[in-house]
């Protein structure tokens, strides 16, 4: 999903996919896409020559990417997002010059 993080953690074998969060293997009711992704992961398991091997899958998400971007996100922001937004708000308020 975010293979750049695997790079940072120096993972042994990483298959990168550009799919929306929650859909690591592909789209709903698309067994062929899911199977291609799983098969690519298994092939990487066999073929990787050594540590920090990364292969990115050359497959576009089917359908409208903007819709997919919206659709993976929950209706309510997660607690850590709300918490972070509050921290930012407080920091901005503290930095504001007193009148």
């Amino acid at each position, binding site marked *: *999903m*975010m*293979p*750049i*993080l695997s*790079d*940072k*953690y*120096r*993972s*042994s074998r990483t298959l*990168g*996919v*550009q*799919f*929306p*969060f*929650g*859909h*690591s*293997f*592909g*789209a*709903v*009711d698309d*067994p062929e896409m*899911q*199977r291609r*992704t*799983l*098969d690519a*992961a*298994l092939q990487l*398991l*066999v073929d*990787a*020559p*050594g*540590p*920090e*091997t*990364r*292969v*990115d*899958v*050359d497959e576009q998400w089917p359908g409208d*990417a903007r819709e*997919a*971007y919206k*659709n*993976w*996100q*929950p*209706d*309510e922001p*997660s*607690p*850590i997002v*709300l*918490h972070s937004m509050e921290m930012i708000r407080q920091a901005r308020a503290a930095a504001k010059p007193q009148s």
Partner: protein
Amino acid sequence: MFGAVTLDSYAFLPRAFRTMFEAAPQFEHEPIWADFTKPLNQARIGLLSSAGIFIQGEQDGFDVERERQEPTWGDPTLRPIRSNVCQADIGATHLHIRTDDLLRDIDVALPINRLGELVADGRVGSAAPEHFSVMGFQQDGAEVWRTTTGPEIAARCHAAEIDALILAPA
């Protein structure tokens, strides 16, 4: 790194979070590696998803109420998912992603049915009798992951003679 394509890791990430991930440190530990020498068609393969999947009626969901109270905490516990679980019995608790699609089709996140097909086709030797589900958001709960959940997954893999575990972040 090898391969002809380099994708955009941030394509589906809200722009506000990009800086945070870009600023994440580069780890400098020793390379992690285990050879995989067994032919795939003789190997037993397991799957792990961080999509917060559990089996309804048999397992509790992940503790999202505590996460709501403690936003920097994520439930670090484990849910084993047997390989023949029915779609109708699948539940999911995750506050960071929508789970509608995986509640309809578990294979988007934990492809137990696709793995079964690859076994039936002779591409893979066998599927693990149970796969693994965790909740992906780990911050304050990460120490439990290191000391308890991770070792428990490893022990279960050894007991089930799993040759490789495919880790799938949600």
